[in-house]
């Protein structure tokens, strides 16, 4: 039974501008299927994005969408969530947008553990601006700014999010569309900050410089590096070098933090903010 993507898309903007075979399309489809799985009303969802290839996605989705400044998507999303706690806020971000330009916003959104879902599409490069190396370009691979090979160690976005305090972190690759759908649905269901990293192919910018200039070989390269997390636990650090660990890194409900009144446990950041707002309004009346 085919899925009706038309329901969630601005069809006058399709075909999209992404390169032929780009992994972002696969991730976007997985996300739309997850929205359908959740049964959300389109008016209750806000899709927020920054700048970059990945961040073009909300332009094609027929919901409340916001295309913001570079790296600041999470800041705008936090504002939306605090103003409208009942709405579902989803941030669609690239690896440069989330971990380089917006790295600070990323770790602090994780720390606050606010009820937002962040989908990071990691394509190992800055695709839109000409293939410069990003914080996730693997060591030894070429980019337009590292023509003799990259020497910078990479960020592991999942471990970074987990350490910063996100309460749901998972990773899947574009080769596993169903797995992506499953994790994004779990992220939507989760109360607290959830990060889903989708490793995607960028054969046009990253692949062209690393002998995989067509989508098939770029996808094969990703597939050859995939390791499930259960298998990875028994492996040595050296064996896991240059591998993509897929699976759920952390999945726990946020700890109840008792604040001011022990009869009212606060589960989540928006609730705490609501409490502060009520307190401030009560003070104004006096």
């Amino acid at each position, binding site marked *: 039974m*085919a899925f009706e993507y038309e329901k969630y898309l601005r069809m006058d903007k*399709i*075909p999209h501008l*992404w390169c*032929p*075979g*780009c992994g972002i*399309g696969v991730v976007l489809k997985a996300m739309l299927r997850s929205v359908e799985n959740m049964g959300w009303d389109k008016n209750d969802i806000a899709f927020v994005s920054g700048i970059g290839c990945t961040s073009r996605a909300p332009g094609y989705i027929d919901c409340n969408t916001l295309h913001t400044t570079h790296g600041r998507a999470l800041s705008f999303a936090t504002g939306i969530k605090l103003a409208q706690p009942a709405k579902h806020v989803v941030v669609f971000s690239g690896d440069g947008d989330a971990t380089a330009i917006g790295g600070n916003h990323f770790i602090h959104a994780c720390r606050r553990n606010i009820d937002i879902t962040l989908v990071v599409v990691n394509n190992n490069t800055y695709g839109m601006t000409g293939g410069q190396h990003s914080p996730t370009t693997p060591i030894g691979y070429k980019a337009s700014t590292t023509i003799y090979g990259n020497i910078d160690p990479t960020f592991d976005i999942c471990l970074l999010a987990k350490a910063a305090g996100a309460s749901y972190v998972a990773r899947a690759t574009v080769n596993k569309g169903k797995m992506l759908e499953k994790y994004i649905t779990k992220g939507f269901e989760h109360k607290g900050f959830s990060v889903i990293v989708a490793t995607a192919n960028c054969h046009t910018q990253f692949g062209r410089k690393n002998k995989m200039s067509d989508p*098939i070989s770029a996808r094969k390269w990703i597939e050859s590096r995939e390791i499930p997390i259960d298998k990875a636990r028994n492996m040595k650090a050296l064996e896991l070098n240059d591998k993509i660990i897929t699976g759920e890194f952390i999945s726990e409900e946020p700890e109840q933090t008792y604040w001011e009144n022990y009869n009212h446990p606060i589960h989540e950041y928006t609730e705490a903010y609501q409490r502060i707002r009520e307190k401030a309004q009560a003070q104004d009346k006096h």
Partner: protein
Amino acid sequence: MSEKINIPEHYGRWEADITIGKKEDHVTIGYWRDGCKGCGICVDVCPKKVWEIIEAKDKWNGQVVQVTDAAKCIKCMLCEIHCPDFCIKIY
């Protein structure tokens, strides 16, 4: 068939009666040629080689795909899930 088939007008169609295991079924494959960018992912992911690449001079890389034999389809939906351009519909 109980399933409602909702393929838009501009989609090309291939239909066939298929047998999955012992179950009799019917498949309708919809394909939007104008939206297709000819990346060839559907040809790569299909386990039954339902899709093939053909020459098309109006496309950027001179290729699009077409269905070789819809009767080979097993409705695994891999091509539909992995098509980045919303071009394939399997009913």
